[in-house]
């Protein structure tokens, strides 16, 4: 699966309250949640991004609460992939379960600048920075995890089997 989009940069320890504030968790509808995606860290985020764009962050992305609403809001907002130096573990697991591609790659996280055009091959873990003409290598997902993501999440994957 190939993904392309513009990079949006974030720092260390982006928490789930910033990704989707709890005051909006009185609904489960993915589109209502997506409307507030990243609101408390960048109020204009939803106005700025285009479908397919990529979030690039430093360490411990998605720390805090277990709310699956966080990766769900990012995915529904149109973000095609999150690249970070490291992820908080519940966020990591939730992302795979709902079919949001995420990659751990310290080199990409430090070298990519905001606005760079990025191309990602999920099956090989190759990240190409089209703007800077650089290539970074992330550990690709094992095949079964790639299948979960392309099925759109764990439940779709399990049901289809």
């Amino acid at each position, binding site marked *: 699966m190939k993904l392309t989009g513009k990079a949006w940069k974030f720092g260390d320890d982006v928490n789930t309250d910033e990704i989707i504030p*709890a005051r909006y968790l009185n*609904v489960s509808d993915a589109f209502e949640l997506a409307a507030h995606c990243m609101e408390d860290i960048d109020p204009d985020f939803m106005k700025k991004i285009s479908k397919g764009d990529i979030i690039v962050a430093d360490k411990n992305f998605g720390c*805090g609460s*277990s709310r699956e609403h966080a990766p769900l809001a990012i995915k529904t907002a149109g973000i095609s992939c999150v690249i970070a130096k490291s992820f908080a*573990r*519940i966020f990591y697991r939730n992302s795979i379960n709902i079919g949001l591609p995420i990659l751990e790659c310290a080199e990409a996280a430090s070298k990519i600048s905001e606005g760079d055009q990025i191309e990602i091959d999920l099956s090989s873990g190759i990240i190409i920075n089209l703007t800077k003409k650089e290539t970074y290598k992330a550990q690709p997902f094992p095949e079964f995890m790639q299948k979960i993501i392309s099925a759109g999440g764990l439940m779709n994957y399990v*049901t289809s089997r």
Partner: protein
Amino acid sequence: MTITEKILAHHAGKDSVVPGELIMAKLDVVLANDITAPLGIEEFRKAGAKKVFDKDKIVLVADHFTPNKDIKSAEQVKYMRDFAREQEITHFYDVGQMGIEHALLPEQGLVLPGDTILGADSHTCTYGAVGAFSTGSGSTDFASAMITGEAWFKVPESLKFVFNGKLNKWVGGKDLILYIIGDIGVDGALYRAMEFAGSAISSLSIDGRLTMCNMAIEAGGKSGIVPPDDITLKYVKPRAKREFKIYASDTDTKYCDIREYDASKIEPQVAFPFKPENTKGISEVGNVTIDQSVIGSCTNGRMEDLRIAAGILKGKKVHPYVRLIVLPGTQTIYLQALREGLIEIFVESGGVVSTPTCGPCLGGHMGILANGERSISTTNRNFRGRMGHIDSEVYLSGPAIAAASAVLGRIASPEEI
């Protein structure tokens, strides 16, 4: 093996496991709340499931936005309630019976030593305090666990924290865990099991241990655990309605790191905005005025916490510029506090006492902060905007500091009163 590895091996039907190994484990308890359950129930339906794997092993607690704070929350809780009735879930807790989930489950004897527990709430790690492996997950894992009674785990490496020596006055479980997070950072235990030991832990009450394990997630931990001892058994035996098993770490087992601390050198801790790792000893806080003091939550809403706070507030008045909000963790705790005269102390001091709810901790209701306001709070997170306006601030502490601060109008030690 460590206690965590032994519990996981047993639940995976294996003689032994090693860190990094992927296992499928049987679950003793599967938990969700009014925020995480609705998404999970939707997934349950989408998968075409008709019945949960065991109606006695699922616990649903309406605690976050309850008593319903608005119409949307009411719809969410109703969705969960309807599901609980349809599936005849034994342990569904609605307003009137419910408490804050991580205060309620240990109190009711629903989580026991040796258990493996999956909860759609990040603070599910709390139950390590009774010697269980317990970890947080999202709603999809919860849905899958409701169907199968199992979950896959990567066996975590274990990190050991040893507290030697005697605790200082006003220092409790909250101060110890904040001290650790200040030391290792908010991702210092990422993916790992945090095991707490040493003489200061052996003498720590169950309430203090629950507080410590509760915040393992704030260091990125997968779980927190205190190997069971006499204090554990005294707590769980009268509550347990089923068999349980006691495990201990082997003395020659390997940890990825062992960190030792001298408890006698630790003073009450305060975590400054906007990360729980921004800790300072109370003597280094300086003049930080507050608008609100919150005493409660799954971290510090238990009897011991209320007794400490009431002991400081007795005969005193809350500062005229401060709102004190006390939230007992469960109905049982509320009643006990009432019988002991603690509720009277809180009200007479000028505080308010709420029914159990997660409420203000996550900026839900019952104490939201305005632009520029500041709260001292016994809760577990001080992220930007956590308790309300994006430009409000939360400082984390134990109940002693929160109570003294309510009286003095600034973050302060009870020694100053």
